């Protein structure tokens, strides 16, 4: 049985990262933008785990645990802030969040 080569993981994670960045740039709903940011973090996780297994070095996998914890904390803070803005504006569309310009 042959294992999946490293390149496959890297291509998948690069694709996920691109989807995440594109989503952040073009989506207008704050929650969807936030989900795309989570996608970026997870693509980095995939890269870390793939390299960790390829190099036979556990640091990458330890790093992934930290990243997952931070991502959870970030989601908690992020959703709280989105709720705060929804109470003020009754909308989470980032086109309408436009008091500050230039």
């Amino acid at each position, binding site marked *: 049985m042959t294992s999946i080569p490293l390149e496959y993981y890297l291509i998948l994670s690069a694709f996920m*990262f691109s989807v995440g960045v594109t989503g952040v740039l073009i989506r207008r709903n704050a929650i969807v933008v936030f989900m795309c940011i989570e996608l970026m973090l997870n693509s980095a996780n995939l890269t870390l785990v793939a390299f960790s297994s390829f190099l036979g070095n556990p640091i990458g996998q330890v790093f992934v645990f930290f990243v997952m914890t931070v991502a959870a904390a970030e989601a908690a*803070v992020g959703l709280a802030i989105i709720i*705060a803005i929804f109470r003020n504006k009754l909308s989470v569309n980032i086109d309408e969040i436009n008091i500050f310009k230039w």
Partner: protein
Amino acid sequence: MDLSFITESLYFVKPEIAASASIILLVLLDLIFHKNKTIIPYVALAGIIITGIFVVDQFNISGFAFLSTDNPKYGMIAVDNFGAFFKLIIIISSIFVVAFSAYSDEINKITDRLGEYYALIFGMILGMLVLISASDLILIYLSMELLSLSSYVLAGFTKLRDRSSEASLKYLLYGATSTGMMLFGISILYGLTGSTNLYIISAALQTQSLNLLTLAFSIILIFAGIGYKISSAPFHFWTPDVYEGAPISITAYLSVASKAAGFALLIRFIKTTFVTFVDDNGNWQLLQVFDWESLLIIISLLTMTLGNFTALWQRNLKRMLAYSSIAHAGYLMLGLLVFSNQGLIAILIYFTIYLFMNLGAFFIVMVIANKTGSEDIDDYDGLGFKSSFLGVSLAIFLVSLTGLPPTAGFIGKLYLFIALVDAKMLTVAIIALLNTVVSLYYYIRVLKHMFLTSPTEKTEKIPLNFGQIAVIIIMLIPILLFGVYFSPVVDLAKSYITILGF
């Protein structure tokens, strides 16, 4: 199992332990004294001072804490004089921010959440202290997120104002995207070098032949994360919005402390990872794997030009100071791009002075906004006649931010430009000098409104109490003193540039 290596490491992280203990203490006190929270600011101040004593205790101590298992010569935390200097800047600005918060009407209105406010400030302090001395990518990422998450919440702390929550959301989206990019860069750098420790990465970069294109890609992604923290172009778009919407005490804190931590990280990252040795003249020899010099010259000039030119048409003083702080990030980068000890000394001098002048300007804007409820430049008409002490102090801070003698801001800029000229970067120095001229216009415009426009019926006298006058005078003294008697700052900076490893 032998735990001695942990107990030995704890000796090096005393300031961080004090900050963590303060977070827990503040949260508990918030629960215990839920009726009357007047005690909490004093506890926070005591916590900062204790942390500060441990930081001063670290001066002239160097060593690694939490040693790496791959190579026990290096560790996750590097304690050195350079870090201690930046930590002291963080501590001093934190003390000022507690004083600011005590006089801020925005914060004092929210009495029931005061405990959270100070606990989150300590979250930022802890994040910054760790960020300054972190020499491992895992720790850099974690402390950066700790700093960012605390500051997202603090930026939106007055959550019932829609401006504040908008600032918070914008900060969150920019911040999370930048740190996400940085994390992807870190994961590639880990894959290329097989380690997360900066010193081991540096050794790997010197010995192995790597794919330079991939390396450059990962470094630019990591720079996106750091550039967002120091608000350098093209990652500066959050700065004006967040600075305008956040409570002023937090704006002042972000503009000084958060930026100082970001710069400390940038300098440490470049110096430990990409500098092979420092020659006798103090010039750093960079590894030929990435063209840091061109990148930093372009970013620095772009940052200061964008900051200064956009500040020209701002009507809101807080927003104008935000663009001015972007421009100052550009000036500070000048000290880094010469890659010499002289440039590093100039950065330390500049930060010492920038701390006082920027906090001072924000404090006066806050005192005026407490009374008038506005930061609009038109509401400053004739202020110099009605409240002459405030007017003159703000004028001194703004002249110092421009960099004119006899204020300390001049000394800071002078050392930066001398470093540039010594490195034979005349073109860069001239563009930076022209930028200073541009900045004169928008700083002096405030003075014009205060002193050359006659007071309208809207202009009122701003009442000042003893404490506020004391805070302003404490910040004025260094600005005026260091402008004429600056050798102590220079000597101090010269002895605090040691970064571990060289």
